[in-house]
């Protein structure tokens, strides 16, 4: 099986590569379009600021090929957010795969209880759908670091709560996106990555 991690200069790619290595799979880091299109599975990572990451995608032309990929694709964190229609962060358009907009956690209101932004740490996921969460229990903990979120929508396959319910994961056809970091979410995260490899 050929697994590629899209390398477009936005992300802590090393950790994702190590997480798959712990599962016994060597992932290839690449920005080569041919190689990405030929892969069996594609990881679309991302950490940092949305509009500059989107700009990098556009400059490399990757924004054109990602939405047309036919194999299973997993967006992680900012990767998931960029797969949505748009993001409030830097007021940028996204790849338009998931039909929702990414917005900022408003602090301190309307978040209840003085919740802080960014949300950093371990939170529970619930209302789990699809095989991505096979063997994962309702209210298992995953690790998140983010200030922006995708609201609940038709494509929501996991819900987290931080002052309000929002999408911890999204799916549409062959595309999956997770707001959390499975590569840093201990055994639960490893299980989710392993499930993706079995798609």
């Amino acid at each position, binding site marked *: 099986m050929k697994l590629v991690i899209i390398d477009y200069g936005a992300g802590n790619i090393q950790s994702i590569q190590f997480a798959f290595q712990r599962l016994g799979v060597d992932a290839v880091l690449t920005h080569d379009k041919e190689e990405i299109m030929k892969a069996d599975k594609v990881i679309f990572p991302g*950490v940092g600021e949305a509009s500059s990451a989107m700009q990098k995608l556009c400059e490399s032309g990757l924004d054109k090929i990602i939405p047309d990929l036919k194999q299973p694709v997993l967006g992680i964190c900012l990767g998931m957010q960029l797969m949505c229609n748009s993001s409030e962060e830097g007021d940028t358009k996204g790849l338009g795969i998931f039909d929702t907009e990414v917005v900022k956690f408003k602090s301190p209101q309307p978040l209840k209880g003085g919740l802080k*932004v960014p949300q950093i*740490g371990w939170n529970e996921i619930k209302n789990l759908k699809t095989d991505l969460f096979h063997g994962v229990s309702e209210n298992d903990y995953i690790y998140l670091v983010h*200030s922006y979120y995708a609201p609940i929508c038709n494509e929501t396959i996991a819900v987290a709560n931080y002052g309000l319910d929002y999408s911890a994961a999204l799916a549409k056809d062959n595309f999956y996106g997770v707001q959390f970091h499975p590569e840093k979410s201990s055994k639960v*995260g490893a299980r989710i990555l392993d499930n993706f490899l079995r798609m």
Partner: protein
Amino acid sequence: MLAKRIIPCLDIKDGRTVKGVNFVNLRDAGDPVELGQFYAEQGADELVFLDISATEEKRRTLAELVYHVAEKVDIPFTVGGGISSVDDVGMLLKNGADKVSINSSAVKNPDLINELVAKFGSQCIVVAIDAKQIGGEWKVHLVGGKVPTDLDLFEWAKEVEKRGAGEILFTSMNHDGTKNGFANEALAKLSDLVNIPIIASGGAGNMKHFADTFIDGKADAALAASVFHFKEIAIKDLKKELKQRGIPVRI
């Protein structure tokens, strides 16, 4: 619900784990990668590696260590200690660190916070603040707590938030090494003052101290070293205890 985090801190010197008591008197406490794995398996939510070595080799040794930790450890970790440039941070993040913490270098050059945030994002920039209460006032100290400044803890905390830091790691030098509990009054004040997560550090001696810092100190996370390194508190037991007290923790 977002869980309160338990963070073992591993002090690193020349690639080995040591523990400073009141920032001096170092004792060897093992291999950082193995210790990190051990804590991850025991239920630690994050790790902090604080490099206190001062050799020429430091940057390369630390970068190598980060790579090996990232390879084996499946929870997030922060690296700190003498980090002073955009290049340093870039290399550590590239090697697999999730966050870096800066301390003295941020006080000397506050614009560094803005530069790092612009380049890498708030989420990975932790500003560590060591402070000591002198005559009722909390003053920021530098270089592992050795050099006092006129900077007020609370003013500095507000400024680092404004400049974009993602988290504050606050160590009370009055409490560090005492095992008498965290600086909860100052922590609660910090938490009310800024809207980014606060990591409490310095003073952990028993399980109740952790509960107190989450409730009275309003801390988002609690960091400790020797109580974990010398097996005085097992993380599994600590989390059970916290859960019984109604504090949200990941078990």
